[in-house]
């Protein structure tokens, strides 16, 4: 029986897309507190403003993250959401679940919380939405003891790492993204749970330059699969695309009326480096000119595949606009092997080099990309102990304001102005 009238929300029960309102009403039959979620949201729809108080510091003992405190500013009206804290549970890499595990986790949430969730939050965690302060420790106890699972990150710490599903179900992945993500998540448990950084720090692992977890746009430390030899080609399969036997682009344009496939127009002419051409009915690629954008591979997945010498590019410093404006990550290491064989040591070395510097130099609430902007990319390249290479920039600088060190200039910076004046009257 509905506890509150929700005429505005009820209008979101029609239409073809699944309705979260219908779903919350269903959950309210299980947990009557959910009526108050609807009641308060209805009030927000009416008032056109949020009814959650600012923040609230809650957590579990020993952790500085993983719980986000939230309190209603109208608790008398909606006592069921007086406390409505969020719990972030670290998702398994790639977000596969057994129903056994997922059911156990949901039963636990029904026991301690509202029963509402996000599968998943923007960073990747399982978000359990809404519980009381006194439920937090019992929930955490059951989570760690019965399910052997753990919380994710929040605050100025390493946020829960995330990956595309990689080799598990994709033919293009250039390294094992889920193993890299899991391994580094385990390696950095302390950094995930106890804030020690100037601000948040995110790892994301994509298997190829299509970048399905948006690592380049969203992570401070992006590991994006790449290769350094030739695109693998099967000329018989190229012919099958050209003669129309195989549907292009993996069938992704199946419902549009785009006419017959034209390899010149749809592949060769769209290549950003113009490094492809046909010789008779054979496709040729000048791989030394290729920037591995993935377009030709995306369009002809049966004929073309990434090369065999696989690894990743590492780009650093992406973030959303708050505060200085949005930044994509800057390419710092064009190619590196990413492998379990060395326990991901090669990647860990780079991460720790960045952290050692940023934890000293970074200001409060400054993302690493902003720190790099503030001190300049040349300084960061030196800090990282890397040789500057043109792959790190789009183009050379167009102003002449270069910093020189004293050692680079013959005679150094100290000069005798009296000696100067003897030759040059003032």
């Amino acid at each position, binding site marked *: 029986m509905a506890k509150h009238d929700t005429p505005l929300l009820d209008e979101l029960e029609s*239409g073809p897309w699944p*309705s979260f309102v219908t779903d919350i009403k269903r959950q309210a039959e299980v947990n009557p507190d959910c009526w108050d979620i609807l009641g308060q949201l209805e009030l927000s729809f009416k008032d056109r403003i*949020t009814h959650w108080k600012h923040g609230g510091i809650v957590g579990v*003992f020993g952790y500085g993250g993983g719980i986000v405190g939230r309190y209603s500013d109208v608790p008398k009206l909606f006592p069921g959401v007086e406390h409505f804290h969020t719990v972030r549970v670290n998702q398994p890499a790639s977000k596969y679940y057994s129903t056994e595990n997922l059911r156990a986790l949901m039963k636990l949430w029904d026991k301690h919380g509202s029963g509402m969730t996000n*599968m998943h939050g923007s960073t990747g965690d399982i978000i359990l939405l809404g519980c009381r302060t006194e439920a937090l420790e019992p929930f955490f106890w059951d989570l760690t003891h019965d399910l052997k699972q753990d919380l994710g990150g929040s605050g100025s710490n390493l946020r829960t790492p995330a990956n595309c599903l990689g080799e598990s179900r994709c033919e293009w992945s250039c390294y094992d993204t889920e193993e890299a993500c899991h391994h580094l998540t385990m390696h950095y448990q*302390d950094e995930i749970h106890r804030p020690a950084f100037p601000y948040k720090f995110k790892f994301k692992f994509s298997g190829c330059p299509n970048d399905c977890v948006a690592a380049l746009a969203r992570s401070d430390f992006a590991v994006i699969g790449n290769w350094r030899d030739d695109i693998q080609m099967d000329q018989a399969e190229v012919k099958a695309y050209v003669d129309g036997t195989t549907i292009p682009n993996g069938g992704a344009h199946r*419902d549009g009326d785009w006419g017959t496939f034209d390899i010149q127009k749809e592949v060769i002419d769209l290549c950003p480096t113009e490094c492809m051409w046909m010789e008779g009915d054979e496709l040729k690629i000048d791989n030394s000119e290729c920037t591995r954008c993935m377009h030709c591979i995306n369009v002809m997945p049966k004929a073309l595949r990434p090369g065999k010498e696989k690894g990743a590019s590492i780009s650093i410093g992406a973030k959303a606009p708050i505060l200085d*404006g949005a930044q994509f990550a800057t390419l710092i290491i064009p190619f590196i092997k990413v492998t379990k064989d060395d326990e991901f040591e090669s990647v860990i070395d780079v991460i720790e080099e960045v952290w050692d510097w940023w934890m000293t130099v970074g200001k409060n609430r400054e993302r690493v990309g902003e720190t790099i902007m503030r001190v300049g990319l040349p300084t960061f390249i030196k800090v990282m102990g890397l040789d500057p290479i043109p792959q790190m920039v789009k183009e050379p600088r167009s102003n002449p304001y270069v910093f020189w060190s004293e050692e680079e200039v013959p005679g150094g910076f100290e000069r005798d102005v009296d000696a100067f004046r003897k030759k040059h009257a003032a």
Partner: protein
Amino acid sequence: MGYDPENPMADRITDIGPPHYSKFHPPVIAKNKGKWLWHEITQAGVMVHKAESGDECWTIRVGAARLISTSLIFEMCDIADAHCDGYLRFTTRNNVEFMVDDKAKVQPLLDDLASRGNKFPVGGTGAGVTNIVHTQGWIHCHTPATDASGVVKAVMDELFDYFVTMKLPAQVRVALACCLNMCGAVHASDIAILGVHRKPPMIDHTRITGVCELPLAIASCPLGAVKPAKAEVDGKEIKTVKVNNDRCMYCGNCYTMCPAMPLADPDGDGIAILVGGKVSNSRTVPKFSKLVIPFLPNTPPRWPETVEAVKNILEVYAKDARKYERVGEWCERIGWEKFFEKTGIPFTIKSVDDYRLAYDTWRTTTQFKYTSHVK
């Protein structure tokens, strides 16, 4: 046995991390990991991945709200138990994927999903509109300038046909963030729906002393609009802050640092629309989304202005763009002046950048197109 409040640290377990992913791989995934040859989308929402072994993994992708109940998740588990050996996965865009190892198992699964009302729409693949990634909005957030789940439901109802088909020039990624903090990171989306404030913060002098570290609040402002000040509360002079309203860009960063500076407002808040971002490196490099509509009002429950704006941009793009062209690639090919002309969106001074790095966006060539903007 369970948590003992008298003994909170006894037998405590910490830092065990997530379960190993390999426990949750369906058998066909576990067997063929790293040995996939190619994939094909056989119909909207249905994909087959072919392995070197000859095995096939058939994936049925289903849209879901991001905000879902345990009841619905139990139902998903029932489906996975009945058809998928007890496994399922979620995508980064809040879709659910049910996987089977034989083509013959696809249709029974589709029939089962279809029998459950509109709860499990199959689609979200290829050249269409997949699920909108979004933030919390009024359901859970303390800084939002708009709702999230409500706007998304209204927009997806309208774009539904593009979710269940693949007839667009390319995939179109729509994202919503309910304030400038952009937990949903909409800065690189084909079409971004962004909650924005338009009023400077109020100062709650009666509360500021207890809840706010003034230097942090002052330092939080990127434009130096927050200054130290004094005020009288109950006859006593207190240290507080003041805001230079002319300088404020309503980013809300001060409110994040100081609860005594609320800025949300029913008439001040609303939605901005940004277009043309992309993440993938395919063909052209990743692009930021650009602001084309500075403000639309918050009009719950169905935000008709926002729905109309998104639909208009999508449909003009669908008609005009070339095959494979993402929204941003289309905009750059035809020129932004043509984008505004073709969509009928008024170009206003608010789309001209005056923030940091603004110069990068100003036109410094004589190359342009004559549109109705040139009088």
